[in-house]
């Protein structure tokens, strides 16, 4: 109610039909470069490093191959025929092609039908969560029974730049379907978007640019708190109603600080905070945090997930875990299985794997 006593309309995105996540799956490549190894090359090891290490893709991996594996894990948990999907959407800022959808290759590889939507999504680090909102709309309106949304990245970091410590590879896939089949019901979502130039990459350029300290207060913190506060208020929930919360994690510090600002406790964000171990997986960042939470969640748990994408915007989602979670968690490799598979590389190997050497 406002001062005049009229009901304030809710800003939540609510679907006509109840919907939820019926399957999910993660992927993280095998290689890790410690932040201290990057510091050894570029600026010595003094000062605190933003993460312990980050995941690096192999020479034969890209957003398409990584999306295929995450999608196969999601399908194994959902237990549906891939022919029933009506959308295969990949959100990323490192699509292998500038022109030619990643989604079409992923759809073919996982055995989807030809009756699908398959455009790629781009919105910096919230490309995947934006695809998830679209999947909610497609399923929640009755246009299709199932939709697959993936957030996946092999993020680009300019050699010597602050972001090279964190720009990592990985992500997660989610299949949205009817609530009665869900392992977690999506209670609603809310998105907050403005024109904020904190980070960008111009067409044809290899590495992104960023506006240093501007990436904090007016960008990350303003958008995440705006999206989360509106979601909490309009859904009538409070931080203590949630067992877990996941925030976009460009480094270890930002998500911990924003959680505190919003009134969440460290134990609520601990499970979803993967950035110290795998780095910032950009479009995959908040979503792979969510997949790690779903790996251990119990029926009745509430989960708040808030993404952040530069440019800028945040999507907030509220999930309520159902009884179906227990038997689906073990039907595919878990997020931690991928994190535990680890081969450490040095900066020279990293330069080769990331194709920073000119061969011809």
């Amino acid at each position: 109610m406002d001062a005049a006593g009229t009901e304030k309309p809710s800003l939540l995105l609510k679907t006509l039909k109840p919907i939820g996540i019926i399957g999910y799956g993660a992927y993280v490549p095998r290689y890790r470069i410690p932040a201290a190894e990057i510091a050894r090359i570029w600026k010595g090891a003094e000062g605190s490093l933003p993460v312990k290490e980050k995941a690096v893709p192999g020479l034969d991996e890209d957003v398409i191959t990584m999306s295929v594996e995450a999608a196969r894990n999601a399908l194994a948990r959902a237990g549906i025929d891939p022919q029933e999907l009506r959308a295969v959407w990949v959100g990323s800022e490192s699509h292998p092609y500038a022109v030619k959808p990643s989604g079409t290759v992923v759809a073919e590889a996982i055995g989807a039908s030809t009756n699908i939507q398959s455009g790629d999504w781009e919105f910096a680090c919230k490309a995947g969560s934006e695809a998830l909102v679209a999947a909610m709309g497609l399923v929640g309106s009755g246009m299709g029974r199932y939709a697959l949304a993936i957030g996946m990245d092999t993020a680009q970091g300019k050699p010597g730049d602050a972001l090279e410590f964190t720009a990592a590879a990985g992500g997660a896939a989610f299949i949205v379907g009817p609530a009665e089949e869900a392992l977690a019901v999506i209670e609603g979502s809310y998105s907050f978007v403005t024109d904020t130039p904190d980070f960008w990459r111009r067409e044809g350029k290899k590495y992104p640019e960023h506006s240093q300290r501007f990436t904090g207060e007016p960008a990350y913190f303003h958008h995440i708190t705006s999206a989360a506060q509106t979601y909490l208020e309009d859904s009538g929930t409070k931080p203590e109603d949630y067992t877990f919360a996941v925030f976009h994690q460009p480094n270890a510090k930002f998500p911990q600080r924003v959680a505190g600002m919003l009134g969440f406790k460290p134990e609520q964000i601990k499970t979803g905070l993967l950035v110290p171990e795998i780095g910032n997986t950009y479009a995959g960042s908040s979503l792979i945090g969510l997949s790690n939470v779903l790996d251990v969640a119990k029926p009745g748990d509430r989960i708040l997930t808030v993404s952040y994408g530069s440019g800028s915007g945040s999507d907030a989602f509220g999930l309520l875990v159902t009884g179906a979670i227990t038997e689906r968690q073990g039907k595919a490799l878990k997020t931690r299985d991928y994190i535990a598979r680890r081969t450490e590389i040095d900066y020279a190997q990293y330069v080769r794997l990331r194709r920073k050497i000119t061969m011809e």
Partner: protein
Amino acid sequence: MEIPRHWRLKKQRYALVGEVCPHCEAKIFPPRDVCPHCSGEAKTPYQFSGQGEVYSYTVMNDAPAGFEENTPYTVAVVKLAEGPMVTAQLTDLGAEPVKIGMPVEMVTRRIRSDGNDRGMIVYGYKFRPVMQ
């Protein structure tokens, strides 16, 4: 440029889709529409599990054109759980030594670019040590 060939083979290459013989139930890979066991017509698509084991392998230090970037890499003959043998690269080996009989599983990876970095990217099956 071999785009039509890559396009024709994409189903078997991306996901190990072969055929099953409707007469003797043999699983067939690569698909060839005629059963190599009973010579009957066999056109029913079959999705292989992707599980198999290393039958034999070698390390490529001098790669054929288009594969130089990945040297040294391991190529194996993999005996699929359903019977057929396929030749494929092994990937994600880390420090693990390859052994004959080692259980492996199929993953879809970049095989190469058709031509230089302006060409289409060719995706296909490789095998990695089984993840638990």
